[in-house]
């Protein structure tokens, strides 16, 4: 049997009301790119950074009157881990596709708008990259689209 990797899991419960902390938590979990295993159970591949990020979130949950626990675990089977990784890769792939499309749109935009879009999309690309633990092929498409946009913006600056 293929060895599986270590994952850090956070189990949590938050009161239904007020909804503010729930929304904040949801946004932060989304930014981290967690896999939602079940209601109130999320997972990330374990490393110093993911563990720390979830530790701070667990504290946020406690501060909001909820309960939270952190676990380090291994999927019992390689197939289960592959499924988890594939789900995360698919979520990132969709984000990279969206980014590539925005790049193509921005290439045709006015120069000022194009530079603004370039800055925003580069930031966006880095943010996706930080939560991309299993890079899908779409990542390379996004890299190319972003490079094309960068070249279009640079050329414009020189010829103007």
């Amino acid at each position: 049997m293929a060895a599986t990797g270590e994952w850090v899991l956070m189990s949590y419960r938050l009161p239904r009301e007020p909804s503010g902390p729930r929304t904040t938590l949801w946004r932060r979990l989304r930014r981290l790119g967690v896999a939602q295993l079940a209601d109130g159970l999320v997972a990330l591949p374990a490393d110093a950074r993911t563990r720390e990020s979830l530790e701070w979130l667990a504290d946020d949950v406690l501060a909001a009157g909820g309960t939270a626990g952190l676990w380090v675990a291994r999927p019992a089977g390689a197939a289960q881990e592959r499924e988890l990784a594939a789900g995360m890769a698919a979520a990132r792939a969709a984000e990279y596709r969206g980014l590539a499309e925005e790049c193509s749109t921005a290439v045709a935009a006015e120069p000022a708008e194009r530079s603004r879009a370039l800055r925003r999309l580069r930031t966006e690309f880095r943010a996706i990259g930080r939560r991309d633990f299993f890079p899908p092929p779409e990542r390379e498409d996004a890299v190319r689209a972003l490079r094309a946009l960068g070249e279009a913006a640079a050329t414009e600056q020189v010829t103007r």
Partner: protein
Amino acid sequence: MRWATRAGVHIDRAACAWLIRRFLDPAAEFVFVADPADVPPDATPFDMRGVALGHVGSDCTFETILRRYELTDPVLWRIAEAVHEADLDDGRFDAPEAAGLDVLLRGLSMTGTDEQTLAVAGPLFDGLYEYHRRRLLLGREPA
């Protein structure tokens, strides 16, 4: 005084250690622990789960320390923006140096001990402080 934090320091802890030594406690001694339970009784813990000097709300520990110790120096608050973005990267502040700082600190943590990381990060933050001090005084990018 003794101060304790988690071993494997990155941007937030390195910046906090610099802040503590430079603005709060020149004789600060730092202890690095793997578990919050290992914090020596005489040490003040920071940037760990469940301690006062940690992440609070949307603040990173550097910002929490500035608030708790009522440090109002605008230069420190500008550095806090960079530390916040390097650590949390939530787009709250416009601090373009954050990405570079994060990479440098990550690299340091790969090549040396926590003590060495602090020793190298100290002059780095001194320089960052001076740069932002001049920038604030001039109202533009200093040469």
